[in-house]
């Protein structure tokens, strides 16, 4: 299957569908509320197989790699689509890496067909002790938990790191939503009170630092791709606006002082694209695969946030209103910058890798 699919064609199909089904007006409308996801759009994405990209064919997926996932996340970023797709991409990778064959068969098909939406604890999240027959504890700030049907939590079992896969609807599980500035995603705090634990819910396969790095690589590429899409989309919307807004008897897009800022943003985004493509193309076990992913993450999320910041300025007053799109991209870009490690933390890691090379 994977040999038959052209990533460029795939990317085009993502973009075409989203520009028809999730145009700028819908993004603007959605941003006025706090719905944890665009439910209808999620169903469509599942029906189109977008949730199945990286799942293996044996589990109902398309068996594609990070290149396809990056193309999807870029398209979702370009549309600022309120879909908890990062959870699907990460959970698929996690279960494939740490689950038993039975666990993979039980969990991945639901992720692939979109009937299951996963939320996954971040690297610095609290861990839950899984030594008894029931679970107790609080895990704060899990991305997209309010939209999730499956929670993937960090745990320990006899002192060893494990992952726990719990249905969000299990008795004793409470998810308290926390509003985010970026209303295209959501955050939730998960409270566990005497939640019954079955052995099948514990993923024990090799859950050490190697797995954390593998997940970090996937998250870094997906977030960089999302920001790349968002950066290009907000710049395109801004160029459109600058071609119609007139002041001093001219369209503002003809002023060189403004055009040069746009040109710098365009060049920055075009050059950033190579980092995402390179990181997504490298096999997971290639030397430098994590370095490439982290480099893409720190650079592209920064560039895109900076572009989005200036796009509000380039719009002028209307850029400060909720009726125009730039604020949606700015908020999404700022969230991407801090998810899975702030930039300084990522830079420290990169510096270590460069020194070790």
């Amino acid at each position, binding site marked *: 299957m994977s040999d038959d699919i052209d990533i460029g064609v795939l990317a085009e199909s993502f973009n075409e569908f989203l520009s028809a089904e999730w145009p700028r007006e819908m993004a603007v409308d959605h941003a006025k509320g706090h719905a944890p996801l665009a439910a209808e759009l999620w169903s469509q994405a599942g029906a189109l197989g977008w949730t199945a990209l990286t799942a293996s064919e044996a589990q109902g997926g398309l068996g594609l790699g990070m290149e396809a996932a990056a193309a999807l996340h870029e398209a979702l970023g370009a549309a600022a689509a309120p879909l908890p797709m990062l959870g699907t991409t990460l959970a698929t990778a996690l279960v494939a890496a740490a689950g038993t064959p039975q666990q993979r068969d039980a969990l991945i098909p639901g992720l692939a067909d979109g009937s299951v939406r996963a939320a996954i604890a971040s690297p610095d999240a609290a861990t839950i002790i899984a030594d008894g027959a029931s679970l107790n504890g609080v895990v704060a700030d899990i991305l997209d938990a309010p939209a999730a049907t499956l929670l993937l939590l960090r745990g320990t079992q006899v002192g060893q790191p494990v992952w726990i896969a719990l249905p969000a609807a299990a008795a004793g599980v409470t998810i308290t939503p926390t509003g985010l500035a970026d209303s295209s995603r959501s955050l939730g705090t998960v409270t566990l009170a005497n939640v019954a634990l079955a052995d099948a819910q514990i993923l024990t396969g090799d859950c050490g630092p190697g797995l954390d790095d593998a997940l970090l690589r996937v998250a870094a590429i997906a977030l960089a791709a999302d920001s790349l899409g968002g950066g290009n989309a907000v710049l395109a919307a801004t160029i459109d606006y600058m071609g119609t807004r007139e002041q001093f008897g001219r*369209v503002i897009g003809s002023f060189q002082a403004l055009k*040069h800022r746009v*040109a710098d943003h*365009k*060049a920055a985004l075009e050059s950033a694209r*190579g*980092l995402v493509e390179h990181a997504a193309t490298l096999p997971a076990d290639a030397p430098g695969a994590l370095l490439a992913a982290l480099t893409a993450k720190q650079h592209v999320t920064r560039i895109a946030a900076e572009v989005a910041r200036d796009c509000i300025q380039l719009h002028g007053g209307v850029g400060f209103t909720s009726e125009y799109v730039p604020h949606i991209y700015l908020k999404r870009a700022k969230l991407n910058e801090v998810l899975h490690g702030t930039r300084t933390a990522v830079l420290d890691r990169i*510096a270590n890798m*460069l020194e070790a090379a």
Partner: protein
Amino acid sequence: MTRAYDIIGKVGDEAAFRQELRDWLAENMPANWRSEWQKVRGSALKTEIVKWLEARRKVGLGTPHWPKEWGGPGLPFAYQIMVYEELSRADAPEVEMFIISLFHTPATLFEHGTQEQKDKYLSGIINGTDIWCQGFSEPGAGSDLAALRTSARLDGDHYVVNGQKIWSSGAAHADYCLLLARTDPNGKRKHDGISYFILDMKTPGVTVRPINQITGEAHFAEIFMDDVKIPVANLIGAEGNGWNIAQSTLSTERGLLIFGEVERLARSFECDGAAARDTWMRDVQFRREYAALYGELQTVRLMIRKLLIELEAHPDKASPTLPTYIKLTWGPFLQRYTEFLLRAEGLETQKWQPAIPGTGHSSRLRMNDFLNSYGWTIAGGSNEIMRNIIAERILGMPKG
């Protein structure tokens, strides 16, 4: 006595080719060339570079990117890339005053020169030591190059040329000049009426005056032309077609030349970090800046690789957009990185030292490299011109 090398004979086996090239470089690079070349300028430097080119010529790599037809090795593009990559990674010297000879002149003559011109001038580059320079810019025609005013008036079997050129690298040592001059002052657009000539720098009426630069060097020169006679046979292409031909000349800067430069910097970047293991790499702020600059360097390298892949697939119609993005990313990156090193390495960087010819932008003399970075942000189309091109030609924003 060194062993016999057959680098060109390894074409077909990339790994063997690369290894043979590396072995040859390890044994044949001029010893201590950095410290030796730092001491010499002018004709003494030319002698050093000619020796290095001779050594390369013996293994078929005097002009690695030239086709067989004109005396080059006729390497497949992937092997040309490998040659320039290995030269950079080995810190082999750049050919300085021969860059126009090896890149710009052939890029112009291969496509637009007459048979007679190719026979006469290319062999002078292959076999001899002819140095070429470029006479494009003028005091009144920099970013607005098409406004150039140097005039060429047809008079029998020659043109009479009057005017002034500026920013001509290596003109002080040049034998020939690639010259743009206006043959028709009444063209509809200012791009019309420009013609392209080969100027013999020994022609009476040619005066060269070096320009002292902020680095203390004088690579550039002004060329004054006072009733200079250029034979009609030295016109390249048709009269009035000079602007189009100039695009071929300049396109050569957008491939292997910039690739070699950037790979050389990539090597320096690694060395700089390793050398600072006990100094600024222990400072959390500088360490993070270095890690961030690594990302910027990678964006440039990856774009150039993409461009080379495009050039390999369509040598004649590479996209004009990618080189513009590369130019506007690489120049400012180079300036930021070299400036970073001044801050990181402190007072030591402020002690004046003579430049090291042949090192491109990676002499690792911090102040020199920083000052030289303007070579990529002003020359060959300034950052501001690149921004105009992106905004107006690529993004279609209205002209102001």
